[in-house]
């Protein structure tokens, strides 16, 4: 009984390592080929990237940049775990950041009250915005893919309506922005020898831990995963699929609401025309890359930012700027394909081992029973 079980466990580990390794090697090989095809030296390019990426200011840049990416990935992953494709993280975090900025700019409470309040407003706004899609899915069966994409556009228009002088924004020189959040309500920073690290790093870590604990250690997480694996079986087991859909969308949206916080509370202090867009879509890629795993998404976010950071340097070295985009795409594809093939191979192998084990056992008992059956048929 024990031996095959241990073998399966050890296999799990080997398979777990095989997939990322396979993906990395494949991605490197393909990228090298692309570079070679364009007449460039791939190894020099990698050299440049590693050298530049390991500089301490690059490290801080990568870390800071990874925070919103990671939060976006977690938001997407909550949906993925129950087969919901929340493409609307982008709209959700922008709506959340905008209204959080408005609330933050209108108040001047002590920081320890106002910061949590701003974050809460962002989470509520993000949650509600995603909740619309959740409600439509649960009540009317509308695909969340469609509604979240449409809500992204509606989010843009909604912000555009309020984001005007005399409404919720004000003019500051040539720029229009929401009233600035008081300095006391900015998030703390962790200072280093170079630039400081954004304190919202803590927020990302907390979100990651909460994601892991809730999904794999709680009843609610079990229900959510059960729905993701088989809606019909979950329903029959007593999970209210509709309620779980709405809750998961609310949760996903609430985490999406955090995506704008590093920028709002750490850098800009207000929502302006230059507020970052498209973080939600990067989040999808990172969730895929990290296989919806709390730790994996962390590494994925860092890798992504490493590529973004070093890509700029490649330009100085005469490489085409687009090569980084190619690399990112190739990596996502390699990872998804590698994981899926390794998973399938693992399942097959496991089944074969189960089969062999039982066949061997059957053969042993069959020997004993041959005598009996001989008597029976005689």
């Amino acid at each position, binding site marked *: *009984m024990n031996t*095959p*079980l241990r073998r*399966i*466990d050890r296999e799990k580990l080997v398979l777990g390592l095989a997939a990322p390794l396979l993906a990395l090697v494949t991605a490197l090989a393909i990228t090298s080929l692309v570079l070679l095809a364009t007449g460039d030296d791939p190894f020099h390019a990698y050299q440049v990237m590693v050298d530049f990426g390991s500089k301490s200011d690059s490290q801080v840049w990568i870390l800071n940049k990874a925070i919103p990416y990671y939060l976006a990935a977690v938001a997407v992953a909550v949906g993925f775990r129950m087969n919901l494709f929340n493409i609307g993280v982008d709209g959700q975090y922008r709506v959340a950041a905008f209204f959080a900025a408005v609330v933050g700019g209108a108040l001047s409470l002590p920081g320890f009250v106002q910061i949590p309040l701003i974050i809460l407003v962002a989470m509520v706004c993000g949650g509600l915005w995603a909740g619309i899609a959740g409600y439509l899915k649960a009540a009317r069966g509308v695909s969340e893919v469609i509604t979240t994409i449409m809500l992204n556009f509606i989010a843009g228009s909604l912000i555009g309506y309020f984001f005007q002088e005399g409404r919720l924004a004000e003019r500051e020189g040539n720029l229009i922005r929401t009233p600035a959040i008081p300095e006391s309500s900015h998030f703390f920073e962790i200072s280093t020898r170079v630039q400081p690290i954004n304190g919202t790093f803590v927020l990302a870590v907390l979100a990651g831990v909460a994601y892991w604990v809730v999904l*794999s*250690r*709680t*009843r*609610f*997480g*079990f*229900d959510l*995963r*059960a729905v993701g*694996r*088989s809606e*019909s*079986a*979950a*329903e*029959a*087991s*007593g*999970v*209210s699929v509709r309620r779980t859909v709405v809750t998961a969308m609310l949760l996903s949206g609430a985490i999406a609401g955090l995506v704008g916080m590093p920028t709002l509370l750490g850098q800009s202090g207000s929502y302006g025309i230059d507020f970052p867009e498209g973080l939600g879509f990067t989040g999808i890629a990172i969730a895929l890359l990290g296989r919806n795993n709390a730790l994996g998404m962390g590494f994925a976010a860092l890798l992504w930012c490493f590529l973004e950071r070093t890509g700029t340097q490649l330009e100085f070295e005469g490489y085409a700027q687009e090569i980084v985009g190619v690399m990112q795409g190739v990596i996502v594809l390699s990872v998804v394909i590698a994981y899926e093939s390794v998973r399938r191979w693992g*399942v*097959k192998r*496991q*089944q*074969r*081992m*189960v*089969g*062999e*084990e*039982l*066949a061997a*056992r*059957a*053969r042993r*008992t*069959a020997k004993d*029973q*041959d005598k*009996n*059956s*001989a008597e*029976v*048929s*005689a």
Partner: protein
Amino acid sequence: MPRTGTTGPPARYGLPRAGPADDVPVRGECDIPASSSSAVELRGITKRFPGVVANHDIDITVRRGTVHALVGENGAGKSTLMKILYGMQRPDEGTIAVEGEQVSFRSPADAIARGIGMVHQHFMLADNLTVLENVVLGAEKAYGIGARARARITELSEAYGLAVRPDALVEDIGVADRQRVEILKVLYRGARTLILDEPTAVLVPHEVDALFGNLRELTAEGLTVLFISHKLGEVLSVADDITVIRRGTTVATVVPRETNPKALAELMVGSELPVPETRESTVTDEPVLTVAGLHLTGLDADGVARDLLTGIDLTIHRGEVLGIAGVEGNGQAELVEAIMGIRVPDSGVITLDGADVSQAPTRARRVAGIGYVPEDRHRHGLLLEAPLWENRMLGHVTERPSSKGPWLTARDARADTRRIVEEYDVRTPGIEVTAGSLSGGNQQKLIVGREMSHHPKVLIAAHPTRGVDVGAQAQIWDQIRRARREGLAVLLISADLDELIGLSDSLRVMYRGRLVADADPATITPEELGTAMTGAASGHLEHGEVPAAPAAPAVPAQAAPPAPDDAAPTPEAQKEGDR
């Protein structure tokens, strides 16, 4: 390789065999060398298959022009073997010979080219096409799609007495007719050897008789039929030879006249069977589950509102097994879902142990003591990609040992899964393997073990032993009987009439969403029950009572009232009557 079976002279028990050319010579030993008298020969087939039971050392000789039955527990490897023969799987070792010639199939297309066709257990027909279109689909090259194809279909249909109507829409015809279309499809593609995978599972008794009539016509014309089943009575009545498969290998080949169901069953499980009949009533007068005035309407495929359940009243007492008989699709699934709270009925009261649970959600009902063995374990009973211990939590995640407060207690759940695996004889190398890699019987034992572990007051068991081997079946019956002795109330829904009669304390017949008749399982016969299932009888069924009408026409598998092909006897129904 053990081969303990009897190998007698050719078997021909009064079956009409008007076949002109293919008169089979007297058979000698079972292990005769490849000769043209055998349609198919499998020698030493071994398959290390992704699944629980591997095939090993399979030897089968199928004589041309016979019905050869393959019986065995589910999970014993019958279906795998047929997939190998049909080119869907390749064997790791062993040889296949068709008409004496060694072959190697890479795909079903190769098998079809060699004249081997398969009728799957689940029909593969396009509902919105006609019979003709379904038959021609994918085989357009053979006879075109016009008059030539029609002529060929009519010719085949008449030659083998299949009586199909080429222009009927498949969605309008009954289950038995669909099966005949499947057989025709295979014949149309030039098959000389037909594999039928559990063909009787979906049929009521008189449809089974009609099917067997068709099979005899096929063999009379020199065709060969490989018939997979685990219903021993049927096998004994239709087969010329029977090969028994146990735990992945052939253990015996016997002829029906020299064996009996009991001996055959014992060959299948490899040990003496427990006797299913001995019973003493444990029924009390303490109602546990009461359903009163249950009414449910729903939309059918065309979006028309129809009554799915009408005026259902039933009471199950402590220690009672209430069996519901009926052709599938007459509202049994809806009744189960209404009791489980998965469907919301329009009206009616469901009372569990004195408490009204009509409005309670599914989870509350399960916690209150309703155990559930669903009809379709893959869709409703298991998370196939999840390990066994997570499946142990499914449906009971709010209870010990799955969780404490909001937190999962994986360690306790794992320990309890090991206990279930041990106590319920779930054959698996461990609890970390996924539920999907177990065989059907073992999956079902896990589900039954899981539900019983929470000591339900009432167990809703929908087809608890469907697709389950004889050994597991006996174990599941034992579990139900033991729990019944301890006061469990059981609602048993089954298509297996022997199971219903053998296990139930009282029987109700469901027809088109109503409970139309009741019967005493101690006196009723499967035939009488089968007749009542077609709607031909109502009220209290007495043994020996002459049913109101002779064998009713083919019953459409739908609960919906006015169905066109039910109103007047169709040509083939009359034909069946004549037979």
